[in-house]
């Protein structure tokens, strides 16, 4: 085990090279609905139980199924109303189980990225080859069912190994060259994109996905009231929008159709989307579009800036040591 995963260098939020999104917009906004499939009776993982109760875990399983049966259409209609294309964090077995949902999203030109095969199959304990196979299977499923070259990854149930990002980047290159496997949503260290070190040294970025704005974290872990969640979204937006004046920011709302699409939560969520999209200087986009744009326009600049700042900091430290 390591004390630091080593994916990125320290890079202070102030005085970074200025980002401007397409058309000079100062903020990029994306919504990432997690469309997940949980199994009623998954095989056991040595590190993490899928359900607290012995089979059948009626409650946990069925509320998640609610997301697909009831919630998906609600959120999809809502996003459409506000001109937002979802960036789907997809349990790719859902292509087989619920192709109707895939079709609806495909028709709306939504992005699909990999969230593993099932949200009840954890990465913990997998060999490198097994994790590579799982990731490859998920990316191939997306391509086969949607024609999209999977660009992004969010590990299933946020279960990682030390190699997760390396493997995703490598499989992406193997399957789709420079178009596949270019960004991760697994890291929460920044409000702007960050170059990420991988074994293959390919251009690869972390795109802010926000655990704090994630509806499941808000509602299930932090037990936030629905209207307060709506207010938090607005506050999050206000600050990032204002800071975008200095250098382009990103706001992401990660959602789950079994959480935010429940009847008592939709109103506050809609109010927040209405508020956010009523601002002019917002690029309403997808995870992949942000990653593509950043890699093309700012990635090299960022790497240079990070290297210079770290070299300068190191020099300062050495000078102090010399005195």
């Amino acid at each position, binding site marked *: 085990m390591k004390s630091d995963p080593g994916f990125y260098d320290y890079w202070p939020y102030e005085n970074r090279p200025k980002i401007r999104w397409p058309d000079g917009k100062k903020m990029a906004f994306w919504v990432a609905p997690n469309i997940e*499939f949980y*199994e*009623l*009776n998954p*095989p056991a*993982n*040595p590190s993490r139980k899928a359900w607290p*109760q*012995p*089979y*059948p*875990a*009626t*409650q946990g*399983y*069925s*509320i*998640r*199924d*609610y997301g*697909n*049966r*009831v919630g*998906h*259409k*609600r959120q999809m209609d809502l996003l459409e109303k506000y001109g937002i294309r979802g960036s789907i964090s997809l349990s790719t*077995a859902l292509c*087989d*189980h*619920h*192709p*109707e*949902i895939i079709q609806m999203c495909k028709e709306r030109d939504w992005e699909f990225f990999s969230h593993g*095969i*099932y949200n009840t*199959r954890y990465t913990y*304990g*997998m*060999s490198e*080859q*097994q994790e590579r*196979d*799982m990731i490859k*299977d998920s990316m191939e499923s997306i391509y086969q069912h949607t024609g999209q070259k999977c660009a992004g990854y969010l590990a299933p149930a946020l279960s990682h190994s030390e190699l997760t990002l390396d493997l995703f980047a490598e499989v992406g290159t193997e399957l789709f060259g420079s178009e596949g496997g270019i960004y991760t949503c697994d890291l929460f260290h920044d409000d702007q994109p960050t170059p990420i070190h991988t074994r293959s040294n390919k251009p690869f970025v972390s795109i802010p996905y926000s655990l704090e704005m994630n509806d499941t974290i808000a509602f299930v872990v932090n*037990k936030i*009231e*629905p*209207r307060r969640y709506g207010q938090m979204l607005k506050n999050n937006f206000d600050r990032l929008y204002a800071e975008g004046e200095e250098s382009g920011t990103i706001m992401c709302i990660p959602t789950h159709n079994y959480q935010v699409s*429940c*009847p*008592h*939560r*939709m*109103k*506050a969520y809609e109010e927040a989307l209405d508020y956010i999209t009523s601002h002019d200087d917002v690029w309403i986009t997808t995870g992949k579009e942000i990653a593509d744009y950043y890699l093309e326009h700012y990635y090299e600049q960022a790497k240079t800036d990070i290297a210079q700042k770290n070299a300068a900091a190191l020099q300062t430290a050495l000078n102090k040591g010399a005195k």
Partner: protein
Amino acid sequence: MALDKSYLQYAHRSYGMDHERYDWSMLSNRPAITWPGGKKLALWVNVPLQFFPLDQKGEPFKIQGGMTMPYPDLRHFSLRDYGNRVGIFRFLKAFDKYGVTPTFAMNTELAKRTPYLLDTIKERGNEVMCHGMHMDALHYGGQDKQVEAQLVKDSLTQLRELTEQDVTGWLSPGRNESENTPELLAANGIKYFCDWVNDDMPYTFNTQQGNLWAMPLSNELDDTFIMLNNLHSEESYAEQIIDACDYLLKEANEQGGRILSLNIHPWMLGQPHRISALERVLEYVMDQDVYSACASDILNAYTSQIKT
């Protein structure tokens, strides 16, 4: 390091669900229905009437709302009992004031212990569904099938005798089931059950003993989920129900009839400082021209309009 190869095999990765219990179906694709009187929204107020034994065994787990302290946990025993002595009568007044038809999900053990309360409900003529034997008689995965079969049979037979009702509905204690529970319910004359929370409308649930209807009793809107589990305020509870009511009514107008299901516990919302939140909710919802009915009537109104 590696996992067993079965961890990367996906036996159920094919169209529909990963089990045979019900068909995959998106709510928005189903035919529109209308409630009696041309109403768009049905209000199902479901009141669990529960007995939490002081000598709780907690097998295989301690139920939420049950005893948590070393024996004898008088605080929780008596606070739950409060609901059946005091809180329920506040509920009944509120139901009558706002013209709400409740459904009672009763532990059979409570029906035996509180004849006054049982008679009160019988005189009112409200539907009683079975809520299992008591709150420490759980149905769970790995339970001996014969033991559970006896438990289901006893719970239903005794409750039917006591209530003099058919008792065709079921809510498991803790909403927990074994893999055999649906079959046992169907074999014992149950028509609908309320444990699964994957829909906002009734749907057909397959069992080897004939089909059941799964009735959509929201756990997200349950008073104990909001105030005990999530620790939200009484005011927030009322806001959440009102927001849900508005949303479901809007969806009902666009897609066809919907159900607002409120599972409310007299030991929770029946407290003096919480009852006004319930009253505020009932006043608001009943002002929306809803169809307030018991679970069986809502189900019958639904099944009479759809092909099965």
